[in-house]
């Protein structure tokens, strides 16, 4: 297990011409000039406008629903209630290419009898104008008889608690039994125990959910929609009771996703209304709809009990986790699993017990959000590391260094890491980049914090994930890539173009990518789980490589040399050691075309396939691989007002290979902001299940006023499973940020706030508790 190589060096002889360059992403000019059409920017003649009516209570029985007045309003074309849907239900399980599905996770599409969360849809309306649809919604009459609800996952586990899902509200459990916990604690010289809490968080993508559906002449239901997952066409077809090839999903550039457009959002409503009316229907969520309309980040309560020797070696850890799954299952079991796998952090710990459960309540359902459980785990393990260091009087970075995983070490679930683990390098560099400490000023205290992480990229290995891509070269030597991948703003499409350009020896401008259409682009899988570049990048790499082989083979014949002596660059084929022997790529492609040599390739990339982990011990492979890195911050805390200012924010990550370093830096900067909101200001407040914060004036995401310039440090081990040794950066960019800030605040004020968000009120409270009481008691 030890002795594996720690020094990854760049693969020799790699002479990249396109990959690794900070090029302007192919999607950017259209967006900056206002030419890009998002899903909401399409209209059709004769189009109807839709509205969703939502329940204003979190737990209730629907005893009456009367849409007669709404239906009678002139200009209202269709009102659908549960009574119109027979017994149709919608899957909430993972979108997949595999056909596998968990049982008992389906959801009613519209409330039939029981309302389980605030905002659950009661009815769908389609009308000639949006104003009419809204008026019709007001005319629908209903009676909701309040039912007892349960709004806390711990309460929901108690005997007699109202049952929201299943027989006991438990929607998932996982456990890890690794090594010998008792022996580990016996070896320990100190035991440190703490409990950390996180909150409901909203994705707050700037583009609310939106789509346009129509039924075409072949009776195919077409849905142009803002989604991370075009493969939902299957779940939508199943919900409607039509064949899978009768639903087509067309994506557009997505105005932000972060996991919030990973589940089905407006698609089924649109499909039902288009089917019922025979007319095109547009449904655009308002911001308030969006706050109600998709799953949130899971709140977790995580307790760490850690055994450690005096010199800082962790000998055992026992972790319990409880996550609030909300009213429906959705991706809770997977989020919980990711939290478990990442539970102890990027540390080698031989004796680990984890007990984790996700519990249904009458709160909003929770599902995917960038970091996907591993972010919540990181909030806990990184604050715990600082608490241990404090307890031992040891430097916080040094404690981490003494415990970091190394290549070849097993993680909590027993999988031995094969790629580079550059946690120490990343942490050291991020910390050093903080530079000189800002001076303290009266009540304003300065603090610093760092956090490291272990974040998977790629989906769970027993889902048997695959991705397909098509690459072709036209007769004028321009290149076409077809891939179903959705682009959620991180440059997914541009990265594919850059890979194809690299391998086929053309410039980025000569590649056109068609993406995100379930009818015409090969299915690439979801843009989730930091998998798009890894999976689809590899699929494009495979296809382009095959095509390159054929082009080079034919060119070699022409030059009378071996194929290994030929290269492609600048739209030419040439002999490497005799560059004057060359021909235009266009001429080479012309020869291929006239000789019937295939000028395109469809390739499938397969992730590692495994069986499931052992349910008793949690041991086995869960993910293809992991990314490692660190985030460091410096904060100023006003101890009188509790106000926190983030002064410096530095992310350092081993991304394996940056396909586009500017895009990677963009991810790190964006993750820093989203993580900062998570740490300091963002909270979806549900009071007895009712959402109190459904607007941007109540739910506060970071503005330009809140953000320092974020510094990005990109390390490249080339040890990842993605194209050219890439790992991933989408989720890792966010994961360590919130705990780094929490640690910095604790460093500044000498007290820890154990619950996110660390608001001014909580800081002031923590400081008050610390004050010695004045006067006699």
């Amino acid at each position: 297990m030890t002795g594996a190589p720690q020094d990854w060096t760049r693969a020799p002889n790699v002479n990249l011409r396109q990959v690794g360059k900070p090029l302007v992403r192919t999607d950017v000019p259209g967006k900056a000039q206002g030419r890009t059409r998002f899903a909401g920017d399409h209209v059709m003649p004769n189009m109807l406008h839709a509205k969703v009516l939502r329940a204003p209570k979190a737990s209730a029985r629907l005893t009456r629903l009367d849409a007669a007045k709404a239906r009678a309003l002139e200009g209202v074309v269709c009102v659908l209630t549960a009574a119109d849907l027979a017994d149709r239900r919608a899957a909430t399980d993972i979108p997949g290419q595999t056909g596998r599905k968990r049982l008992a996770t389906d959801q009613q599409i519209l409330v039939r009898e029981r309302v389980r969360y605030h905002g659950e849809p009661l009815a769908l309306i389609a009308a000639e104008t949006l104003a009419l649809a809204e008026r019709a919604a007001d005319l629908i009459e209903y009676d909701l008889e309040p039912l007892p609800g349960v709004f806390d996952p711990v309460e929901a586990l108690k005997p007699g608690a109202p049952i929201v899902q299943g027989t006991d509200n438990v929607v998932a459990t996982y456990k890890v039994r690794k090594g010998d916990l008792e022996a580990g604690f016996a070896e320990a010289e100190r035991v440190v125990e703490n409990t950390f809490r996180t909150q409901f968080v909203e994705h707050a993508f700037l583009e609310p959910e939106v789509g346009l559906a129509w039924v075409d002449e072949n009776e195919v239901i077409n849905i142009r929609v803002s989604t991370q997952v075009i493969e939902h066409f299957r779940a939508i077809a199943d919900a409607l009771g039509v064949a899978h090839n009768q639903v087509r999903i067309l994506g557009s550039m997505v105005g932000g996703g972060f996991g919030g457009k990973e589940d089905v959002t407006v698609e089924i409503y649109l499909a039902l209304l288009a089917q019922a009316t025979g007319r095109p229907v547009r449904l655009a969520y308002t911001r308030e709809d969006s706050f109600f309309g998709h799953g949130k980040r899971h709140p977790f309560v995580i307790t760490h009990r850690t055994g450690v020797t005096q010199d800082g070696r962790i000998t055992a850890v026992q972790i319990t986790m409880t996550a609030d799954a909300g009213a429906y299952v959705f991706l809770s079991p997977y989020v919980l699993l990711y939290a478990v796998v990442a539970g102890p952090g990027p540390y080698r710990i031989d004796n680990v017990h984890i007990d984790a459960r996700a519990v249904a309540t009458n709160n909003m359902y929770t599902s995917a959000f960038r970091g996907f459980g591993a972010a919540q785990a990181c909030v806990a393990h990184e604050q715990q590391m600082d608490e241990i260091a404090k307890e031992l009087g040891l430097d916080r970075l040094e404690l981490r260094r003494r415990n970091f995983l190394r290549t070849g070490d097993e993680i909590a679930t027993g999988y031995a890491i094969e790629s580079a683990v550059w946690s120490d390098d990343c942490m050291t560099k991020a910390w050093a980049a903080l530079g000189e400490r800002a001076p303290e000023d009266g009540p304003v205290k300065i603090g610093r914090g760092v956090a490291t992480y272990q974040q998977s990229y790629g989906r769970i290995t027993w889902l048997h994930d695959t991705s397909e891509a098509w690459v072709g070269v036209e007769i004028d030597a321009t290149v076409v890539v077809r891939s179903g991948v959705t682009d959620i703003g991180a440059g997914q499409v541009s990265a594919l173009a850059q890979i194809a350009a690299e391998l086929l020896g053309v410039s980025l401008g000569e590649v056109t990518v068609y993406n995100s259409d379930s009818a015409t682009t090969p299915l690439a899988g979801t843009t989730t789980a930091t998998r798009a570049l890894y999976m689809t990048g590899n699929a494009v790499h495979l296809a382009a490589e095959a095509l390159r082989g054929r082009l080079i083979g034919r060119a070699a014949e022409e030059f009378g040399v071996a194929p290994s002596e030929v290269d492609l660059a600048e739209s030419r084929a040439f002999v490497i050691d005799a560059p004057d022997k060359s021909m235009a790529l266009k001429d080479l492609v012309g020869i291929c075309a006239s000789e019937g040599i295939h000028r395109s390739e469809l390739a499938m990339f397969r992730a590692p396939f495994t069986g499931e982990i052992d349910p008793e011990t949690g041991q086995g492979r869960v993910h293809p691989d992991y990314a490692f890195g660190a985030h460091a911050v410096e904060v100023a805390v006003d101890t009188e007002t509790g106000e926190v200012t983030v002064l410096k924010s530095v992310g350092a990550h081993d991304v394996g290979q940056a396909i586009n370093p500017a895009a990677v830096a963009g991810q790190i900067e964006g993750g820093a902001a989203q993580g900062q909101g998570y740490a300091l200001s963002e909270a979806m407040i549900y009071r007895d299940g009712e959402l109190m914060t459904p607007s941007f004036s109540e739910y506060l995401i970071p503005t330009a006023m809140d953000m320092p310039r974020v510094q990005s440090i990109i390390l490249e081990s080339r040890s990842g499973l993605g194209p050219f040794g890439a790992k991933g950066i989408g989720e890792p960019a966010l994961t360590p940020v919130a705990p780094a800030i929490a640690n910095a605040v604790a460093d500044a004020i000498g007290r820890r706030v154990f619950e996110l968000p660390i608001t001014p009120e909580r800081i002031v409270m923590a400081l008050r508790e610390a004050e010695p009481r004045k006067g006699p008691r």
Partner: protein
Amino acid sequence: MAETKTIALTINGRDRKVAAPANATLLETLRELGYFEVKSGCEKGDCGACAVLVDGEAIDSCLALTWTVAGRAVTTVAGLSLGGAKHPLIEAFEKSGAVQCGYCTPGLIVAAQSMLKDTPEPDDDDIRLGLSGNLCRCTGYTKVFDAVRDAAAVLRGAESQA
């Protein structure tokens, strides 16, 4: 039904006559006319995605009633580059990588243009203040700061040559 009247205004340099009901917002009217680069993110003045210039000043078009801009000049991001050359802010946003999902971008560029009119040599804090009404969930604003400073320098150069 709200009363409808026809008003005259200039949009991206073009004189237009527009029929709009009394309660129509400028955001609704512009999108109805096909100016889809003007985005809707909240319709409450919280996000800035809908920002346009009215006589050179950035406003949230979701908060302005269409009737109130009669006779005035409305400019969207697509109208900034009129006259051929790409507007320096657009150029700088592209080059700096200040664009990710791009949904906030038209509003950010318009807000930046409005700010630079009064503050041609902004430091980061000026930019923060100038863009404080525009939410971006993707970029963390770092490259936006770069883009605005770069564009300001270009615009100052153009000014001094003029």
